[in-house]
């Protein structure tokens, strides 16, 4: 699957209180949550997202709370993928579980500027900066996680496992 869009750049330690402030944790509705995505930093974030746009961030993206509302809000806002130098561990799991593709590449992050046109391929793990022509290959997911992603998320993966008789 290829995702294409423009880059939205962020610094390091973008935490879950920024991604979706706690006062909005009274719903799991992606459309409602999307309205408040990144609100403490930028009240206009969602309004400036074209579906397929890509967040490009420094280290430790998604640190803080385990709230799954965070990747749900980002996806609801229309973001197609996140490229970061590193991800906080609970956010990493939550993104995969909710079907939000994520990629780790410090080199790519350093070489991408805001509004660069990007393309990422979830099958090959290749990131392309269409604006500059440069590409980067990211590390492949472990087989199990690739299976979760291929199934479309943890719930579908689990549903298939539970339905199929164990060998």
């Amino acid at each position: 699957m290829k995702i294409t869009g423009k880059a939205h750049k962020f610094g390091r330690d973008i935490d879950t209180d920024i991604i979706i402030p706690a006062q909005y944790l009274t719903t799991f509705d992606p459309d409602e949550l999307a309205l408040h995505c990144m609100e403490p930093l930028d009240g206009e974030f969602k309004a400036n997202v074209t579906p397929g746009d890509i967040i490009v961030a420094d280290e430790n993206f998604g640190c803080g709370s385990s709230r799954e509302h965070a990747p749900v809000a980002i996806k609801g806002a229309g973001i197609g993928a996140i490229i970061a130098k590193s991800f906080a561990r609970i956010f990493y799991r939550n993104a995969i579980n909710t079907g939000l593709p994520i990629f780790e590449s410090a080199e790519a992050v350093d070489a991408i500027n805001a509004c660069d046109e990007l393309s990422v391929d979830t099958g090959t793990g290749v990131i392309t900066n269409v604006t500059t022509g440069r590409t980067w290959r990211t590390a492949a997911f472990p087989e199990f996680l690739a299976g979760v992603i291929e199934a479309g998320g943890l719930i579908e993966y689990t549903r298939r496992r539970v339905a199929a008789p164990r060998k």
Partner: protein
Amino acid sequence: MNITEKIIAAHAGRDRVAPGELVSVKIDVALANDITAPGAILEFAKIGVERVFDKDKVVIVPDHFTPNKDIASAEQAKMVRTFARAQDLTNYFEIGQMGIEHALLPELGLVLPGDLVIGADSHTCTYGGLGAFSTGMGSTDLAAAFATGETWLKVPPSLKFNIEGTLGPWVTGKDIILYIIGRIGVDGALYKAMEFTGGAIGALSMDSRFSICNMAIEAGGKNGIIAADATTRAYVAERSDRPYTVFESDDDAAYERVFEFRAEDIELQVAFPHLPSNARGLSDVGEVVVDQVVIGSCTNGRIEDLRIAAKILKGQTVHRGLRLIIIPATQKIYKQAMNEGLFDIFIDAGAAISTPTCGPCLGGHMGVLAAGERALATTNRNFVGRMGHKESEVYLAGPAVAAATAIAGKISAPDGAEN
């Protein structure tokens, strides 16, 4: 192997595991709260199983936006209550019996040494203080766990933090963990186990051990852990008859890095806005006037914390115009504090005392901040907007600094502290 590897191996049905391996593990406790359970319940319904894997092991505690802070929260709480009833969960705790989850579960003996616990709350790492492997995850992970009783884990490499020596007056587990996070940063333990050892750790109360492990996540840690010892066994003996296994790290266990700290070097700490790693010793704080002090949370709402605060507040009054909010973490702690006369001290000093709730810690209710306001809190995070308006500030500290600050109106040391 070290203790984290041993517990994971035992629950994976393996003799050995090594860092980096992906394993499937059986869960002893699967936990969620009022704001994370709704997502888990919705996703659980899609899996195709009718009942949770074990109605004794799925634990739900409504603690974040309760007693219901508004209609939307009431609807979430109702959904969670309905699910708990339909599933006949043994360990669902209604308002009036509940407490803050990470104070309640140890108190009730629901987590024991050697257990493997996952929870839809980042501070699930708290139970490492009992010598359990315990880590936070999202709602979807918990939904899958509700159905199967298992989860997948990547075995983390371990960092060892060895602390010897004697802590100074008023210095507690909260200061130790702020000191450590200050040194390694909010991703200094990213994806790693944080194992705390040494004479100074062994001398700590259970309450202080919970404080330390509670904030492992703030360094990015997968889990925090303190091996069970005589103190742990005595605590557990009063709370559960369930058999348990004490795991200990082998002498030749592998660690990615070992840190050695001296307890005498650990001053009372304050973490400045807007990162838990922005910690300084009290002597470097300078003049910081605050509007509100909160003593409570899953980090520091236990009886030891309240006793410390009471010692300092006794006979004193809260600084004019400052709001001091004290939140005992469970009903048992609430009653114990009341019976020990701590509430008289708090109320006479001019503090507000609340029923157990996470409340202001995440800017929910019971003490939210306006623009331009500053709070010092015994909570665990101080990111932008954490306790309210994005133009408010949160400083993190332990109960002694919190109580002294409430009296002085600005961040202060209690009398008798080294500085």
